[in-house]
């Protein structure tokens, strides 16, 4: 049906080459770790790397057949970060193990082993999503269901008794569902579900949101009644802040919604309103924390630590300080993989993994890692720009921005740019829920970028297999046949 065409190559071989290079980098890391920690490189240092490499290759094959025009950079870049995460967690296990056990440390034992197993499961799940979801627009049919599921997932940990929702006794954040030794973090999945709903809702409402407005101080402000959903999401995210004691997640949900709103309407006023509401809420929480205490006390302490980390250096400030000292010890080039003392930092396998790695790979290594994240996000935004339907644009833009905001929240917290709040570092931190949710995010981006880069079918000939003959009927303004260059 569309008659517009862009030159397109699938670039799958470039993806394969990059993937092999990524695995070589991870293998070099693992070998250096062993050289430092064991003083020799064992013959099977490559086994965990080969395991993740094999499953990444399988994903590459699935992409090659099911999403042939998908972005060639996404899979290798994510694979590199994920592989480094697995190797670093294994390195922590090695450091914690007794010296005589180190040489033959089983590959599926310890945090690193669990992360390896989770990686295998997540990548298979991502491949499964690619198989099931042949057209990203099909997801919009389940938008309301997903929206409801997202809200339920956000609320569950808040209402569960602490016994089932608190995993870590030191921090009192209630983010988990823990049943019989098996723990999931539903917020990670809620992010994706809510984003699908936001994208769908805003595609339907974009006209009224962007057109009906009043002009004030040179900026177009929307009407009061159109603000409704924003205020609701703001209240939900404040609720998360209060009941789950998690500033980062609430910032994440709110930022996610405001930015999708901004992408949908192209109005700067939404960003201004969003920032004002967020800072208003944060100041209010800080003020209430210092006077009333109660549920806000946690947030107040976080800000106090941020303002003066040395105030309670052996108590509340211990963890952030150890992180900063680790980064400082690393300097420009780092102490070398396996050469530092990352186990000094509490929670280094989780929230503080970036500080732990930073000690060993230094500023140059960390900035390379950040550039790789940046490239992943850029490719996501690129897919959002190029895809031809509004729902896909909003979804891809929102997903990439969420990834970006989460990185900002946790790395900003570790480097003391903003008050520290517990977030996982995407693809790097130990944790199955986070890894799984982020791989599902990557699968969605792959699907959207495939749709964006696929050469448009000519005439009324057969459409690509799996794509529905007509776009989903409810989508308002779903297709424009003209690509914006």
């Amino acid at each position, binding site marked *: 049906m569309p008659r517009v065409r862009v030159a397109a190559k699938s670039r799958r071989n470039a993806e394969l080459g990059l993937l092999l290079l990524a695995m070589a980098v991870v293998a070099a890391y693992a070998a250096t770790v062993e050289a430092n920690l064991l003083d020799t490189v064992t013959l099977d240092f490559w086994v965990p790397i080969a395991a993740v490499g094999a499953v990444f290759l399988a994903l590459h094959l699935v992409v090659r057949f099911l999403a042939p025009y998908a972005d060639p950079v996404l899979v290798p870049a994510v694979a590199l970060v994920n592989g480094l995460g697995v190797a670093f967690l294994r390195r922590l296990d090695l450091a914690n193990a007794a010296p005589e056990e180190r040489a033959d440390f089983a590959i599926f034992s310890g945090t690193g082993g669990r992360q390896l197993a989770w990686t295998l499961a997540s990548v298979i799940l991502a491949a499964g999503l690619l198989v099931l979801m042949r057209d990203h627009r099909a997801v919009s049919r389940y938008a309301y269901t997903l929206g409801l599921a997202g809200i339920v997932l956000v609320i569950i940990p808040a209402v569960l008794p602490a016994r089932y929702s608190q995993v870590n006794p030191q921090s009192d954040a209630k983010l988990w569902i823990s049943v019989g030794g098996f723990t999931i973090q539903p917020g990670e999945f809620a992010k994706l579900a809510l984003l699908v709903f936001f994208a769908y809702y805003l595609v339907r409402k974009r006209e009224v949101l962007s057109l009906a407005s009043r002009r004030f101080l040179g900026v177009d402000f929307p009407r009061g009644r159109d603000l409704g959903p924003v205020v609701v999401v703001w209240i939900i995210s404040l609720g998360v802040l209060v009941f789950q004691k998690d500033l980062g997640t609430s910032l994440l949900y709110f930022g996610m919604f405001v930015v999708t709103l901004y992408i949908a309407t192209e109005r700067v006023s939404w960003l201004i309103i969003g920032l004002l509401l967020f800072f208003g809420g944060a100041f209010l929480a800080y003020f209430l924390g210092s006077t009333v205490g109660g549920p806000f006390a946690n947030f107040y302490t976080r800000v106090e630590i941020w303002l003066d980390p040395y105030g309670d250096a052996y108590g509340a400030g211990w963890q952030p300080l150890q992180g900063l000292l680790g980064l400082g010890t690393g300097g420009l080039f780092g102490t070398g*993989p396996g050469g530092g003392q990352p186990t000094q930092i509490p929670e280094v396998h989780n929230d503080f993994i970036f500080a732990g790695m930073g000690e060993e790979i230094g500023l140059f290594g960390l900035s390379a890692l950040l550039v790789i994240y940046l490239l992943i996000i850029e490719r996501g935004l690129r897919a959002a720009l190029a895809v031809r339907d509004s729902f896909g644009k909003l979804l891809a833009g929102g997903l990439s921005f969420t990834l970006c905001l989460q990185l900002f929240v946790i790395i900003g917290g570790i480097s003391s740019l903003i008050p520290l709040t517990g977030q996982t570092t995407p693809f790097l931190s130990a944790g199955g829920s986070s890894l799984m949710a982020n791989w599902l995010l990557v699968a969605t981006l792959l699907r959207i970028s495939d749709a964006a880069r696929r050469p448009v079918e000519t005439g009324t000939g057969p459409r690509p297999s799996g794509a529905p003959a007509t776009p989903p009927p409810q989508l308002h303004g779903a297709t424009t046949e003209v690509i914006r260059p």
Partner: protein
Amino acid sequence: MPPFVITVARIGFIVLLWIFVFTVVGVIRRDLFAGARSSRLVAAPRGVGAVLGNTKPAKVKRGRAAHQLVVTAGQLAGTRITLGEAQITIGRAEDSTLVITDDYASARHARLVPRSGQWFVEDLGSTNGTYLDRAKVTGPTPVPLGVPIRIGRTSLELRP
């Protein structure tokens, strides 16, 4: 392990990491240029699409002839269509050449037809009308370069 080997491995890893980064940037860069060569969109009529790979943009006379249709206002603002020899239909219908999501546009709103190097705009019985600059279009009207064609909230212009 001798310290020398450790140092080489340590620096080598960072170098390798950056090599990866630059390879990725190289792939993206080739991608960008591949996009740049074909960033102009070629519009062809329905049914002729099958041979579209071989059609070149129309051989209209260089100089003052129109080569591009540019959307200057409305939701699709910034969209460019390279003009061929085929007519361009504009409207909300899925099979239009330029599908505009504009509440004030009809399903089949207007069309642009080339006749010996000159483009004519023709209203297809739309509800809200087509305007060439300020004047309502009633019959086929020649479109000069740079004069806005207004359809609902969308404006289009021919550019050389």
